[in-house]
């Protein structure tokens, strides 16, 4: 049984999604211009990772949606 997410936790989750989204784009910008194989490879892999992080955070909100109270408590 999971407990409802706190307002603070939701703020952190939302901020984290912004961070992951930005990092995904930044890594894509590096891959687009990079001429260094080690950097290219590292940043390509990181695009996938940030995408997965974003999905996990999204999933956490979804998971908590059903049990969240609709009235302030």
């Amino acid at each position, binding site marked *: 049984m999971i*407990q409802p997410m*706190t307002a603070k936790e939701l703020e*952190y989750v939302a901020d984290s999604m912004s961070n992951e989204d930005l990092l995904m784009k930044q890594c894509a910008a590096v891959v687009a*211009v990079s*001429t*260094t194989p080690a950097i290219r490879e*590292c940043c390509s892999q990181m695009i996938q990772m940030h995408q997965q992080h974003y999905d996990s*955070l999204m999933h956490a909100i979804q998971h908590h949606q059903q049990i969240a109270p609709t009235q302030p408590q």
Partner: protein
Amino acid sequence: MQQQQQQQQQQAQQSQSILNEEDLVSTVLADLKRVVREYATAATESTCPDIRQLFTKLLHNTLSAQGQLFQAMQQSNMYNAASPALRQELDKQMQQYQQTAQKTRQLLQQKLGGALQQNAMIGAMNQQSPQQQQPIYM
């Protein structure tokens, strides 16, 4: 040949952008460092076990990604590591913190000596009543 093409591609893109490859990679590294701190804060301030667990997992992943990117940068000579600490500085700190550790051991022995001993023998010698209540028991 491919490298030449890549160089041309890079030059074309660099004329559009003020930030070059090294600058862009540095911003990614800086943001990974920031995100590591944010995940650590989020995890320590979480109440729900599942949310804490999620932040902890993301913290580990981000921390290792930051390490990998740092290594890739170092390999590609994009990172000037700090100069090594001098031997005499290491000796100085070592000496100072050995003294600190020694003092702390003595202090703990003095304040909790009996309690620590009793703690070690807990269960075996229950009849021995403590002289004073120590918060360490709670």
